[in-house]
């Protein structure tokens, strides 16, 4: 021990008390222990953050399933109804009457999704998109005659969605009739699981408009399509899918037949007011279009497409392969003989 003088004798130290020390050690032990548990506890223990394989932080996708929106048709009604007339509303009523009337299918208070074809920003009578007059009439019938609670109109177009809805006239038609348009935002999609599908068992689907929906009706025009032979009713459900749809063309017939089991709609309408005979599915020149006076309503979309292929596109009996694949998957029957009713 040295003789060194004490520096600053007036200063009073404040030594760490035993309690403080113990408290500090406890805090350290506690924090350290908690951290150690989180990091080192084996995978699967409660609160453990351990991930040995690196797979746990993979984004988890929870697919959902769609309801089956079908309603049994009345006993004596046909599977496919064909209405002919000079105006869309007349054709619509006749076609729907042939399969039992709209009120049989849509009950008061139902929330209904109407899915038209809004794929391109073409003018209405170029036949590339659904006829706005038809859509407006349908929505009015739903809201007024059937007293549906709400009608939602939606599609995921290939081209720019706002442009397509605007220039095809379907935005205005929906608004006038009292429906509401649902556009495909980035957060409107969820992965849908379709059991039994060949190629699209899990695929991004435009989910947002379908929450709490009771009935689904599809309205599509009749169009020529090089790869698929024709784009009519069944193929129109393509517009509800997201993701990399551009891969579908590698096996288009399997995809379209998958679409027929992905969506089980209440009714399907095929509008033959402007038939796109060539240069489909985009069209663009009025000479491609053949005006017509037919509208079909059906509970069997396979038969509907077959009849339309034969009689509206006038291609004869060389039906596209997807119709047979769809029949194999149980979505309907190609042979429409004896199951149609035409009201002129």
């Amino acid at each position, binding site marked *: 021990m040295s003789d060194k003088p004490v520096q600053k004798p007036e200063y009073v130290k404040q030594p760490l008390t035993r309690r403080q020390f113990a408290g*500090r050690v406890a805090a350290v032990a506690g924090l350290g222990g908690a951290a150690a548990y989180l990091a080192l506890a084996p995978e699967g223990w409660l609160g453990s953050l351990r991930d040995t394989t690196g797979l746990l932080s993979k984004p988890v996708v929870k697919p959902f399933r769609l309801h089956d929106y079908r309603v049994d048709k009345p006993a004596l009604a046909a599977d496919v109804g064909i209405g002919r007339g000079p105006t869309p509303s007349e054709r619509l009523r006749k076609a729907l009457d042939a399969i039992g009337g709209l009120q049989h299918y849509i009950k008061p208070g139902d929330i209904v999704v109407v899915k038209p074809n809004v794929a391109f920003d073409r003018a209405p009578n170029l036949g590339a998109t659904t006829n706005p007059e038809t859509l407006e009439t349908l929505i009015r019938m739903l809201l007024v005659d059937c007293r549906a609670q709400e009608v939602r109109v939606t599609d995921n177009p290939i081209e720019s969605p706002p442009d397509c809805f605007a220039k095809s006239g379907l935005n205005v038609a929906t608004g006038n009739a009292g429906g509401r348009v649902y556009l495909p935002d980035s957060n409107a999609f969820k992965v849908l699981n379709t059991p039994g599908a060949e190629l699209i068992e899990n695929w991004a689907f435009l989910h947002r408009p379908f929450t709490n929906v009771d009935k689904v009706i599809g309205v599509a025009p009749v169009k020529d399509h090089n790869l698929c032979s024709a784009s009519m009713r069944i193929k129109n459900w393509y517009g509800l899918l997201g993701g990399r749809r551009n891969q579908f063309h590698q*096996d288009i017939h399997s995809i379209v037949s998958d679409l027929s089991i992905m969506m089980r709609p209440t009714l399907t309408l095929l509008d033959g007011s402007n038939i796109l005979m060539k240069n489909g599915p985009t069209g663009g020149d009025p000479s491609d279009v053949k005006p017509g006076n037919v509208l079909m309503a059906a509970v069997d979309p396979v038969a509907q497409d077959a009849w339309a292929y034969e009689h509206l596109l006038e291609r004869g009996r*060389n039906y596209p392969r997807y119709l047979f694949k769809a029949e194999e998957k149980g979505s309907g029957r190609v042979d429409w003989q004896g199951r149609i009713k035409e009201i002129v």
Partner: protein
Amino acid sequence: MNHIQLLNIEPSDSSRSKGAVRLPPPPKARKFLRITNARILSQIFFFTMFLLAIWATWTTRVGGYPVSRILEMDPLVSIATALATGHVYRFLGWGILVLGLTFLFGRVFCNWICPYGTLHQFVGWLFNTRNTSERWKSNSYRPVYTLKYMILAVLLIMASMGALQIGLLDPICLMYRTFSTVFSPAADMVIVSLEDRLAAAGADGVVLDAVKFAPGVDSRVFVGSFWIGVFLMTLVGMNLVIPRFFCRVLCPLGAMLGAIARFSVFRIDRDVHKCTDCNLCLTRCEGAADPQGKVRLSECFSCMNCIDDCPEDALRFAAVGLDTKQVVPGMSLGRRRAVFAAMAGVLAYPFLKNHGVNTDENYSPKLIRPPGSVEESDFLSKCIKCDQCIKVCPTNVLQPATFEEGGFEGLWTPVMNFNIGHCQLKCTLCSEVCPTGAIRRITVEEKLGKADYASAGPVVLGTAFFDLGRCLPHAMEIACVVCEEVCPVSPKAIQTKDEEVRNVYGEIVLLNKPFMVPDLCIGCGICQVECPVTDSPAVYVTSVGESRSIERRLLLAPRQHAAVASDLIQIQPLKHT
């Protein structure tokens, strides 16, 4: 408060304080085993272990060495990836060791373990030209030292949202990255030249191969390594301006440990009754922690230099009997700075993510990741840019990404460059050394799609495509087909249509014209490497079709096996008309 200003001490050897009795020096043995020597030993040990890790991160040497352990011990890596992914991968639990040490002893990591700290301290020690009072000034606390806490806050906030950028400034990542891509090939250059001289002199030049960082292969190059090296050297050079510049001003790991050090059990304790306010303890204070006044716990590196320098033995490193009036937590960030940092952190995330160069719609065809990589957004929340994968890769195909491949977010993450090398078929070393699971550990079976993974198929890195205008058989009537020859899968992903042609010189030549079978291609890139059109190869791999991402796939489904006549155009008629 700046104690320097209050005192009027001449810069002299103040062991002769007035009226004091000089004690005899401590015995040699005790001096040898004193704590600062223990610290130096520890620094040597960890720096050597670090160099050993770099040296051993090579295909023939990896063996069972835990080459990424220092990275796995880095608690900033563990905590940031846990924030970004919600999990603690494989060996990242080792970070508890350093956390525990910090809880007990304060920021010992910074001066006892961290190899970057050792490097800074060594360079500073070597080139220091300051005299004593200049040293006091350079080691006093400055407000700029709060910058590292703001940097840490920004990085952690970004990490919690899923954008992991700690790798840019984390000292261990920095060291691994720079030594792997800059100093290893530089050292190998020197060794090769030495070997050549030995061989020219008649001696056995191969003896130095054991010291080479990448023996047995052609000399290695790393794209962009110039900037990686400049980055590190600039920061090291800053030691001549402010000692331990990086550690005091920028280091996010130091900031995190500093924030924890306020709870530490052991700390520097100054006995006021012995202290003569001579400031000699500041001479070599590494952390600028004010040992001469109230010790800043968050800045103190526990380097123990102040204990060695105090002629009055007034300083000690202890847990009991501490004078609580002589310590402060020390961060002094201030609310304004904290808010500013938080804002920057929150904004940084959308700034990065909406930059638009690495989305599923707009991604670079050159963004080809190593086999076992997780899908891109997950990858960017895990990759710490340590470049261990790049070091271990035997073919030199892995390169640090530039802005072109992955934008700013992907800078220095690993990408494959098939002009330089190919992905060796049965090698999975990159997945073994990755500390965070950005490249998930895979076995050779998973990579090839065999055994349990047969239904999932092989890991596909991308798809090869032909540039027919540059391909010798297609465009120039010259026989080639190296690409088909080296394609390693069975059956081959490159098939040929064979054709006889009379060329311009009148000879009949047999041309095997190659074409791709994308269902079979695994994107290994050996076709591109071997293509004789070396400047812009006639067959090249791009990232589309990689199996780790559903969005970036090319094919809807692989086609049927075996050659059966397709019924694609058959149309079945109705049964009756």
